C-alpha cells in the first residue's frame, strides 16, 4: 500500500489548530453546506437565465452564460466568506482566554508572532479549503464560456487575499477583546464599517478607491479584474490592491502578536516596521491614484488642489496614528505596559533607529510619527514628477506650505495625545479624548461659527478666529484659487494667503504649551507614584 508521508508544519500552533479544527462533524458540515449553497444558487441562476433567454431573440440566447454564472458564483462566495471568516478567527484568542489556556500557551517558548501566525494560517487554511471546494463549480462556468482562466485566477486570488485580511482583522480584534461574543460582534462591525467606508470613498472620492478592494471580499470580487490609473501608468487593479491587502493582513497579525505580548514584554519594533511599510505603501498607492486621476493637460490650479488634498490626507493619517504611538506613556506611568530597553546594536544608524524610533520609549512615539511624516512628505514631493506633471515646480510653495500645516497639525495632535495619556492614565481614554478634540475641531467648530464667519457686511466676527483651530480651513485656503475662495466666502480674519502661516504658528505654539504642561503633569504623576526613572 502506498504510504503518504505525514506533512507536519513546524509551527506547533498551526499543527494543533489544523488537526483539531478538522476533527468532529463541524468542519465537515460547514464544507458540505458551503458547496451545497453555492451549487443551489448556481443552479437557480442557470435556470433563471435559461428561462429568460428562451424569451429573447436567438442571438442573445446564444450568448455564453459562463461569465454571468461565474459572477453569481463569486458574489455568493464572497458573501459566504464574509460571514464565515470572522467566525474562524474572532474567537481564536478570546476562547483561549475564556478557557484559561492562554497563560499556558504564552508561557511556552513560542514567540507571540508564531502564535498569531499559526492561528491565522490555520484559519486561512480552512478558508482555502472552502475556496478549493468551489473550484469544480468555477470549472462548470468556464466550460459554459465567456470567462477566461486569467479572470478566474484573479478573482480567486483576490478572494483569498480578502479572506486572509478579514481573518487577520478577526485575530487582531480577538487579541484585544475580552470575550468571544464581543470579539465576533466587533469583527463583523469592523468588516462592515470598512466595507461602508470603501463604498463611500469609491462613490465620492477624488482618488480611485478601488485600490482598497482587497479589504472586503465583495469589493474584491467586483473590482479585482478592472484597470486603474497609477501615477501615469495603467495597471490591473488587483496588483496594488493585493499588495495593500497582504500588507494590511501582515500588519493586523503583527498587531495581534503585539497585543498578546503586552503586559509582559513589549518590543514594538516589528509592529513599527510593518506600520511604516504599510504606511509607505498606502501613501504610494493613494498619491499615485490621486495624481493619476488628474489629467496630464490640467492647469496649475488643479494640481494646487491636489497638493492641498495630499497635505490634508497626510495630516489626518498621522493624527490618527499618533493616538496609537504616542499614548503609551499612560500605561508606562501606571506600570502596565513598560517598554523594553533597546537592544545592543551595531551601526550608528541601526542604533539610532532602535533607540529612537522602534522602542516604546517616551520620546520614540513622536520621533516615529515624524519619521512617518518625512516618508509621506518624500512620497508626495516625488509623486508629482512621477505622475508626469511637469508644472509642479510652479506650485512648490503650495506643496511645502501644505506639508508645513500637516507637520504643525501632527505635532499638535501628538502633544494632545501625550497630554491626555498623562492626565487620564489610560490608553483608551486618552485615545477617545484626542479623537473627540479632532472631531470637534474638524466638524463642530465650523458649524458653531456659521454666523460668525458670515457676520454683518462680510466682516469676520471675533469668533471667526476659532476657525483656525480647524486644520481643514488652512488646507482649503491653500487648495482653492482666489476665485473659488471668494465664492465660498470663508471670511477668515487673516485672509486666504496668510491662513497657512497663521495656522502653522498657532499650532506650533499650542503644541509647545500643551507639551510643556503635559511634561509638568507627567513629572508630578511619576513622583507621586514613585516610578523609577528608566535607564534610557
Amino acid at each position, binding site marked *: 500500500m502506498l504510504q503518504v508521508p505525514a506533512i507536519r508544519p513546524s509551527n506547533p*500552533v498551526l499543527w*494543533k489548530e489544523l488537526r483539531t479544527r478538522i476533527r468532529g462533524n463541524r468542519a465537515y458540515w460547514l464544507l458540505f453546506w458551503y458547496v451545497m449553497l453555492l451549487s443551489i444558487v448556481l443552479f437557480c441562476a442557470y435556470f433563471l437565465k435559461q428561462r429568460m433567454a428562451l424569451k429573447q431573440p436567438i442571438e442573445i440566447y446564444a450568448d455564453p452564460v459562463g461569465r454571468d454564472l461565474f459572477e453569481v458564483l463569486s458574489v455568493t462566495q464572497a458573501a459566504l466568506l464574509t460571514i464565515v471568516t470572522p467566525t474562524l478567527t474572532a474567537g481564536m484568542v478570546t476562547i483561549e482566554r475564556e*478557557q484559561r489556556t492562554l497563560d499556558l500557551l504564552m508561557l*511556552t*517558548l513560542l514567540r507571540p508572532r508564531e502564535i498569531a501566525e499559526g492561528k491565522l494560517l490555520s484559519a486561512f487554511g480552512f478558508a482555502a479549503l472552502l475556496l478549493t471546494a468551489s473550484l469544480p463549480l468555477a470549472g462548470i462556468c468556464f466550460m459554459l464560456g465567456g470567462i477566461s482562466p486569467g479572470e478566474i485566477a484573479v478573482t480567486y486570488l483576490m478572494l483569498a487575499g480578502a479572506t486572509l485580511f478579514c481573518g487577520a482583522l478577526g485575530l487582531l480584534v480577538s487579541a484585544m477583546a475580552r470575550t468571544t461574543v464581543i470579539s465576533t460582534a466587533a469583527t463583523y462591525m469592523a468588516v462592515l464599517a470598512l466595507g461602508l467606508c470603501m463604498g463611500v470613498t469609491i462613490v465620492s472620492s477624488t482618488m480611485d478607491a478601488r485600490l482598497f478592494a482587497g479589504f472586503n471580499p465583495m469589493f474584491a470580487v467586483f473590482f479585482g479584474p478592472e484597470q486603474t490609473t497609477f501615477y501615469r501608468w495603467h495597471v490591473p487593479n488587483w496588483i496594488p490592491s493585493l499588495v495593500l491587502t497582504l500588507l494590511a493582513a501582515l500588519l493586523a497579525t503583527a498587531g495581534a502578536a503585539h497585543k498578546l505580548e503586552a503586559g*509582559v514584554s513589549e518590543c514594538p519594533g516589528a509592529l513599527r516596521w510593518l506600520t511604516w511599510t504599510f504606511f509607505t505603501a498606502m501613501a504610494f498607492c493613494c498619491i499615485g491614484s490621486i495624481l493619476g486621476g488628474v489629467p496630464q493637460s490640467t492647469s496649475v490650479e488643479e494640481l494646487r488642489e491636489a497638493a492641498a488634498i495630499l497635505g490634508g490626507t497626510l495630516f489626518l493619517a498621522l493624527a490618527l496614528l499618533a493616538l496609537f504611538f504616542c499614548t503609551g506613556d499612560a500605561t508606562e506611568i501606571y506600570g*502596565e505596559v513598560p517598554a523594553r530597553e533597546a537592544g545592543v546594536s551595531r551601526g550608528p544608524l541601526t542604533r539610532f533607529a532602535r533607540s529612537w524610533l522602534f522602542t516604546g520609549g517616551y520620546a520614540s512615539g513622536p520621533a516615529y510619527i515624524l519619521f512617518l511624516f518625512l516618508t509621506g512628505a518624500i512620497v508626495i514631493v516625488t509623486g508629482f514628477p512621477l505622475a508626469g506633471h511637469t508644472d509642479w515646480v510652479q506650485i512648490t510653495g503650495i506643496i511645502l506650505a501644505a506639508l508645513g500645516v500637516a507637520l504643525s497639525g501632527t505635532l499638535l495632535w501628538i502633544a494632545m495625545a501625550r497630554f491626555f495619556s498623562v492626565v487620564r492614565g489610560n490608553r483608551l481614554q486618552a485615545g477617545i479624548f484626542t479623537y473627540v478634540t479632532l472631531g470637534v475641531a474638524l466638524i463642530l467648530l465650523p458649524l458653531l461659527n456659521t454666523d460668525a464667519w458670515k457676520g454683518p457686511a462680510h466682516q469676520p466676527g471675533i469668533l471667526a478666529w476659532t476657525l483656525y483651530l480647524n486644520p481643514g480651513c488652512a488646507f482649503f485656503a491653500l487648495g482653492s484659487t482666489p476665485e473659488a475662495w471668494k465664492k465660498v466666502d470663508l471670511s477668515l480674519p487673516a485672509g486666504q494667503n496668510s491662513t497657512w502661516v497663521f495656522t502653522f504658528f498657532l499650532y506650533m505654539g499650542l503644541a509647545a504649551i500643551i507639551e510643556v504642561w503635559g511634561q509638568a503633569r507627567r513629572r508630578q504623576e511619576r513622583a507621586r507614584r*514613585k516610578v523609577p526613572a528608566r535607564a534610557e
Partner: protein
Amino acid sequence: MITIQHLRKEYKTLVAVDDLCLHLEEGDIFGFIGPNGAGKTTTIKMLATLLRPTSGTATIAGFDIVREPEAVRAVIGYMPDFFGVYDDIKVWEYLDFFAAAYKIPTERRHHVVQDVLELTDLTGKRDAYVEELSRGMKQRLCLAKTLVHDPKVLLLDEPASGLDPRARIEIKELLKELKSMGKTILISSHILPELADFCNKIGIIEKGKLVISGGVQEIMRQVRGGRVLLVRVLDEPDRAIELLETMEGILSASVDEVHSAIRIEFAGDETAQHALLRRLIENGVRVQSFDEVQTDLEEIFMKVTRGIVS
C-alpha cells in the same frame, strides 16, 4: 534558585503584594500559605512572568523576571490555579503540542511525552480526548504538561484544589516524586495539611505581606517559643501538675481534656526534655506515655495570622 527582593504589585485601588522578600536554594520545597486573596497567585504570576511587578525585582536561576522573561520561561514550569484544556485534542497530542511549543526536537518529543505520561500515571489515557478526563486526571495532565521541558523550578498554584481525597493523595505522591528529582518547588495552598509533609520551608502571606517565612522547624520555634509535650499518667494528674510547676523551663502545665493527658509547654532542648521525664518518674509519677506534639502548619498559621485575618 529563586531570589525575590522588595516585590510589589499594585492594582488601581489595591496593593496585592507588598514588599515581598524571599530566597530559595536549589532543591527547596517552599510552601506558600495564605487565605484566598492574600496575594499568592499574584506573586506566582509575577514569578512566572505573566504579570509585571510595579516595583522590586526577582530572579529565577539567575534570570531577571522583567528583563529576561524568555530565559525565565525556559527554566520554570507553571501550573495555574485555574486552567482549561483544549477541545478535540487527545492526551498525547496535547503533550506533544506543548513539547513542540517548548522547542523540543521532533525526534526526542515522543520519548518526552512517554516519560511524562508514565510519571503522571496517564499512560493508559494516551489516546483519550482531553476533555473527557476526570478532574484529577486533568490536574495530572496539566502537571505533565508543566514537566515536558524538564524545568528546574516548579511554580504550582493550588495544585490540589477541588480534588477528591484520592486524587489529592495521587498529586501528593507525584509531588514527592518531583521533590526526589531535585526540583525546586514553590507551591501555594490555602489548605495547610496538604503541604505539611514535604515542604522544608514555608511562608505565610496575609494581605500582600509575607508575615513570616523560613524553615518549618525554625518557624515553629519562633512562633511557639518552646515545644508542647503531652504526658499521660495513670493516676493523680493534679499531683503531677503540682510537681511540674516547681520545675525549671515549664511555661505552663494543664490537663488537656481532649487527649486526657497533661499538656506541658516547655522551653528546653532534647536533654532537658529527657531530664524532665526522669524527674517525673523519680518522684513516683506513674507515666504512661510521654510525647512531643508535632505542631502542624495549621496551628502555626492560625497563630501567626491571628488578629490579622478577620
